[in-house]
């Protein structure tokens, strides 16, 4: 796992993808930080995080698109799958590399926190709660992205498809009031990534939500492993 993780980290930076990802993330977070936080005169970072949801939704597929699709296309997967390592190690190595880049991006918040601390009183509990929420969101979305990347040989297909899926997950709960059955509406609301995320940004720490994101991440990594496994048997 370590070998794959290190290689992916190297590839993120040598290909320039990491720089693009970080730059775009910093541009938008900087914009929202200025517009929603500084300009509002409050030190509450929640609006920044609420707005970043949509940005993350489009950026994460860029991070995950080539992780498995390119291996398949260039046939380098033969090297990985014939090495004495397990499928979980391959998937987790790649997953954690993408997550690391995401964490590097997200940690810009501490720079903002320092700026805020200079201007006024920072509510660290909210800020850390927000940071943690975005980390969980990223963990879940990256797993979805890696899974979609394992389905295709084409990076662009993986990216566009991942964006569509993540966008659908974002809009998911807006369907809830369209259902006449209450239980279905409730279910859809329960499965909403956005609602749970917003709840965090409001400073509510809900353990079910933590579990929700973590199990989504686990589930999709598990699916990815199954896809790799199945490819061998077909």
């Amino acid at each position, binding site marked *: 796992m370590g070998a794959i993780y290190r290689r992916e980290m*190297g590839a993120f930076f040598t290909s320039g993808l990491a720089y693009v990802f970080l730059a775009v993330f910093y541009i938008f977070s900087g914009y929202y930080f200025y517009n929603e936080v500084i300009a509002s005169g409050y030190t509450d970072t929640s609006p920044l995080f609420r707005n970043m949801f949509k940005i993350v939704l489009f950026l994460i597929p860029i991070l995950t698109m080539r992780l498995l699709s390119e291996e398949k296309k*260039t046939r*380098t997967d*033969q*090297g990985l799958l*014939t090495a004495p390592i*397990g499928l979980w190690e391959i998937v987790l190595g790649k997953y954690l590399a993408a997550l690391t880049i995401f964490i590097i991006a997200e940690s810009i918040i501490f720079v903002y926190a320092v700026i805020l601390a200079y201007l006024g009183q920072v509510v660290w509990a909210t800020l850390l709660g927000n940071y943690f929420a975005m980390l969980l969101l990223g963990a879940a979305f990256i797993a979805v992205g890696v899974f979609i990347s394992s389905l295709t040989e084409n990076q662009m297909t993986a990216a566009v498809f991942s964006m569509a899926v993540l966008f659908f997950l974002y809009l998911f709960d807006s369907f809830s009031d369209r259902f006449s059955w209450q239980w279905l509406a409730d279910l859809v609301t329960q499965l909403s990534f956005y609602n749970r995320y917003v709840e965090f940004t409001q400073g509510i720490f809900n353990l079910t939500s933590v579990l929700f994101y973590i199990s989504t991440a686990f589930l999709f990594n598990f699916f990815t492993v199954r896809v790799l496994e199945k490819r061998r048997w077909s």
Partner: protein
Amino acid sequence: MIEVKNLTKRYGDKRAVNDISFKVEKGEILGFLGPNGAGKSTTMNMLTGYISSTSGQILINGTDILEDPKKAKSNIGYLPEIPPLYVDMTVEGYLNFMFDLKKCKLPRKAHLKDVCDLCKISDVRKRLIKNLSKGYRQRVGLAQALINNPPVLILDEPTVGLDPNQIIEIRTLIKKLGKRHTVILSSHILPEIQAVCDRIIIINKGVVAADGTADEIAKSITNEHKMTLRIEGTTHTASDKKEIADAIRSLSGIKYVRADMEREKGIYDFDVETDGKTDVRRAINKLCSEKGWNILMLQLSDLTLEDIFLKITMGEQLVHDEAEQKKERPKINIVLEEAHAPETEDDENNGGEQ
């Protein structure tokens, strides 16, 4: 070392590999020979655990590849048809990655240096793989397979796309590796298999068509014995040709004689086929000295690997065309002769395939 039992791979209705069984002993170099699409790569992919078999069993060093894949795979170094290279890495970076990936416990620096020296890629260690030529990439692929000194090496068409010098180098290297490793190598290039392998398995349409050394395979499928004679007559006229042919034909043990073209003035080639039991060389020599003819050449031409290969892979068709072939024999013989001349020439042919 490697044991394969009733291996089958099905893709839908198509059987890519059908009930293949064989064993490879330690230190043996086994050649997989077969036309394109015969199932060579599929078999190798199953041996290395890249794909699974539909049924059957593969034991690497006594370990079942499906039961304990990690242990089995740690015994294998694999060079697939397309080397699994990350082109945006340097050779050094890539080999270090493979070193970690294979969880190699050997001293890193010394081991990587050995592997690079062996594959002659030490001079390109700092370069990006995408800037390397095909020959170098192939060698980096081979180096990757050698990391961690696996007892089994599986090489899928290792010389494809190399120039003649590189092909000879790689062959020499494989032979050298064969002393310490068990090697399975596939190719559709006959001279290559013949030059490198101790044993040959011919695969055709997913089944083992022949298994043994080149000689054994030749013996098992034929009892023909052929030779080519070049004889100078006495009169240097066209009548020599017929006279000589008739005289040879009258010897006992001769099945078939056919006069070939006139090589030089008054010198003819004859294709002679014996019953395989009688050694007619002395009789021919005696005959010629009695008649005052000069033997300028006598060459035994047992079936070449090429003949065997064609015979096996095109089996039935060949039998049907037997009559036709006898008529056309001169043409075929010339082709075989050319194709089978010195090694360097074969290499040029191969090199031209890139």
